[in-house]
């Protein structure tokens, strides 16, 4: 009697899990399948997850029809990679200083950083635009990179990480004659890899997927990033859903590849942003 009851519960739980997995997968499968369909099949409105006439043409056409596509991809890569690299470096430096070094104003700074965590980007978007404009940084890489080269959440995360970091290692390095800066770059940072990996994925994804910031800063089509380009492309090829889906898939692939490699750090990162 008891055994049967557990069995029924299990079936229900699996039912929920599978039903939601299908709900999650269907939009992606539909997008992938559409990206391999001919325009004829797209407009005909037939519903089939398996393309009738499987074609790779859409993936070729998006690059031919929209010659800026490689440029947009290049812009996205340059910006996302620079932003990620600078965030790793600067957030770690700030986190380390807040965790380990004594200097006047440290406490106040820490409180400011915590407060900044709560401020929505929309509040600063108008002044940021004006500041970038007066610097002459609109339509430039630095306009996208410099304002987002630090992140309060990850400064906070790195501080927590370094506070729990064994002090003995640094003391040993100091006795061996390494300077503070040398110790940080040669001893501390290499040992912070798990925290850095989690941070890297989040920062990269945030930058790669950002829509609003480039929408405001980049008005020149040459300087668009992929999300903006994708939106423009949709405007130009409004009923060519086979093209739009192919472009969307090209754009999603890099993040999926990164996720596949760093999956376990990713979960760690989420639980940190949630766990504080």
């Amino acid at each position, binding site marked *: 009697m008891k055994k049967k009851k557990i069995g029924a*519960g*299990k079936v229900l*739980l699996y039912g*929920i*899990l599978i039903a*939601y*997995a299908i709900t*999650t997968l*269907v939009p*992606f499968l*539909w997008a992938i399948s559409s990206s391999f369909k001919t325009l004829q099949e797209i407009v005909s409105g037939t*519903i089939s997850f398996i393309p009738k006439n499987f074609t790779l043409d859409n993936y070729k056409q998006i690059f031919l029809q929209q010659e800026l596509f490689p440029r947009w991809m290049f812009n996205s890569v340059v910006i996302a990679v620079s932003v990620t690299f600078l965030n790793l*470096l600067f*957030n770690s*430096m*700030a986190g380390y200083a807040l965790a380990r*070094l*004594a*200097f*006047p104003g440290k406490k106040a*700074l820490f409180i*400011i950083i915590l407060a*900044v965590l*709560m*401020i*929505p*980007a*929309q*509040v*600063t*978007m*108008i*002044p*940021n635009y004006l*500041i970038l404009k007066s610097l002459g940084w609109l339509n430039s890489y630095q306009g996208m990179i410099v*304002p987002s080269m*630090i992140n309060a959440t990850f400064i906070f995360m790195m501080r927590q990480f370094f506070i729990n970091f064994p002090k003995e290692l640094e003391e040993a390095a100091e006795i061996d004659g390494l300077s*503070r*800066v040398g110790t940080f770059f040669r001893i501390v940072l290499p040992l912070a890899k798990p925290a850095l990996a989690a941070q890297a994925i989040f920062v990269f994804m945030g930058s*790669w*997927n950002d*829509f*609003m910031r480039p929408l405001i800063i980049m008005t020149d089509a040459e300087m668009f990033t*992929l*999300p903006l380009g994708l939106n423009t492309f949709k*405007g130009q090829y409004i009923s060519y*859903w086979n093209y*739009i*889906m192919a472009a*969307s898939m090209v*754009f*999603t692939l890099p993040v*999926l590849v990164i996720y596949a490699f760093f*999956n376990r750090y*990713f*979960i760690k990162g*989420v*639980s940190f942003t*949630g*766990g504080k």
Partner: protein
Amino acid sequence: MQRQSRKKMREMGQGYFFMSPSLLVLALFIIGPILYVVFLSFHKVQLLGNGSLEFVGLDNFSRLADDSRAQIALWNTIKYVAIVVPAQTFLALVLAATLNAGLKGQQFFRIVYFLPTLTSSAVLTLIFMWMYNKNGLINSMLEGIGLQGYNFLGDPDIALNAIMIMNIWSTAPFFMVIYLAALQDIPESVYEAAEIDGANWFQKFWKITVPQLRPVTSFVAIMGLIGTFQLFDQSYIFSAGSGGPDNSTLTVVLLIYQYAFKTLGTMGYAAALAFILALVILIATLLQRKFSKEESLY
């Protein structure tokens, strides 16, 4: 003594050196702009030519009372927040508890569920627009089971709901991961005791899991609140920047964007709206915190 103070001085220098990039960005692109936005909200801003600023006092704030689009945007945003936050929080909790039940294949489901979190809002919105198409996947499925289809993108009564469904679907898994981490911290012995008392899965969920997770739920709700108040990308792409059909997908942030960058001479007004939005988010956050604190006293 002197050596000691020299060491201190050196550490101070190092501290500021390590902080310097962050200090620069904080000052120039976060704290400066916050003060600047308050300043702008009391001015009429002209960007053309050399640009000009004209002090207008509280005009930008009183203007809100006669601006019907701002009221629509506010109403749409409140509706959106009020439905999406509870729905995504509940869904995240149920998914996390189900995943945590110790079934086989957990890892697989976890990876699948996480896909929407990885995908950009632009791509997700485009995929859903394609599915919401008049003769698209969702309408075909609805007709397949004998229901009527909808004009998801064109019908003002439906469009915002279509965005809500999409965003509940895409954000719940992120919060699910937060719940999953917290579930690990509930001691197994509590569940075992309940089992001895004859509690079933549902009772354990309702009487142990939910109360134990209350602080996390509060955190998830605040994060959800902050996130949903900022709805922009999806509305923008859905309506090609207009907030249509018939202002039905116009959100506060989209309106701020339009006033700041698409119409001339309204940047100061947009700054006032942004300032109000920040206050609303702040108050909502504090209220949420206060309520959840009071609750945890019992």
